[in-house]
């Protein structure tokens, strides 16, 4: 976003005081292959899911740590968003799913040989979580294991 100085006072303070994680260092895995040989996954925090899957639901504590599987070969018309925030402009994704979840773009990169292949599945979480502990302890590692089992080399992470 938005450079903070361009925001309203309320929005700026909300973001400045948002209880986000503070890490001292980042884990690091060097890419094992060149991009042209890599299997690439999309992982998003945009609260997306397949049309016939269960929408995300805010729980009592205002969180939602579950995730949804979106097969990379599913029709983009079958992907919808149930993110529970109206703090972002939904018109972007109404116009074009790719502005948040570039599944068409990744397919094009595969056709052009820029990436080796797209992964079998993409994964979607809910964003704007004030308490991410269950994602850190449970659902995040679970998705990481699934991606590894599916032979993924690189993950592109997108917000909404």
């Amino acid at each position, binding site marked *: 976003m938005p*450079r903070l100085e361009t925001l309203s006072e309320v929005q700026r303070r909300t973001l400045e005081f948002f209880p986000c994680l503070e890490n001292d260092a980042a884990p690091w895995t060097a890419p094992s292959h060149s991009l042209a040989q890599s299997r690439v996954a999309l992982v998003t925090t945009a609260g997306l899911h397949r049309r016939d899957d269960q929408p995300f639901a805010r729980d009592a504590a205002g969180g939602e740590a579950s995730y949804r599987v979106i097969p990379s070969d599913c029709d983009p018309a079958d992907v919808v968003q149930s993110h529970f925030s109206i703090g972002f402009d939904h018109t972007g994704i109404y116009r074009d799913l790719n502005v948040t979840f570039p599944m068409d*773009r990744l397919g094009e990169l595969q056709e052009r040989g820029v990436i080796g292949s797209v992964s079998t599945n993409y994964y979607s979480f809910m964003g704007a979580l004030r308490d991410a502990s269950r994602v850190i302890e449970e659902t995040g590692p679970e998705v990481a294991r699934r991606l590894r089992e599916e032979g993924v080399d*690189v993950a592109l992470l997108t917000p909404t």
Partner: protein
Amino acid sequence: MLEEQGIATTAIVMVREHAEKVKPPRALFVPFYFGFALGKPDDPAYQHRVIQAAFDLLQAAEGPALADFPEDDAAAGATMPQASQVTAEPAQAARSAADEVTALRAFYERWVEGHSGRTAVGLSGIPQRRFRGLVRFLEACAQGDAEADLTERPAGVSRPQFIRYCADDLKAFYYEARMEQQRDATEEALHRWFWGSTAGGKLITDVAATLNATEDPNLRALAYGLAR
């Protein structure tokens, strides 16, 4: 987590200050507004440049690597007014959301047809051809009828959640119809039209006000995600 499983990650991030704290291994800060992570809808070339900039970080020798996307010309969403920031036009109160839904249907259907079936409508499970019923349900909710319900509500979905899915579907229906009706409308114009001119916008604002007037913190949190 992913890196610990041997997967190299590169992230698009929208709040630089948060990325500085979280320290993801590779992060591309984009100066776009929330809802526009790749900058511009319907602009594949621009989106490819954002993706490429994120992939370029895979070349970094060490991390955390935080880079800034060099282009700063995608201003969509810059002025997204919430409902309370829009002045209602006087005629709004006299309009009927059910009649609007009927009048907008042809535009909505043309939008969906022109977008290969892509539509953000679909959380409630109610087909748009039955949205007059969805409107009547939301009108009952706005009037404080705590028993109002629809047979389409799935067993695992609570009534408050269902209200939100219905409201989200109604919003998406109106916006997509309007984008078909006025193809050059700016995001700001769309929001001002929805909240200030349509009975549908007023209906969702009224539902939020009714939920907000309760003592139930869950309903009040729900209201905050409908209109504010």
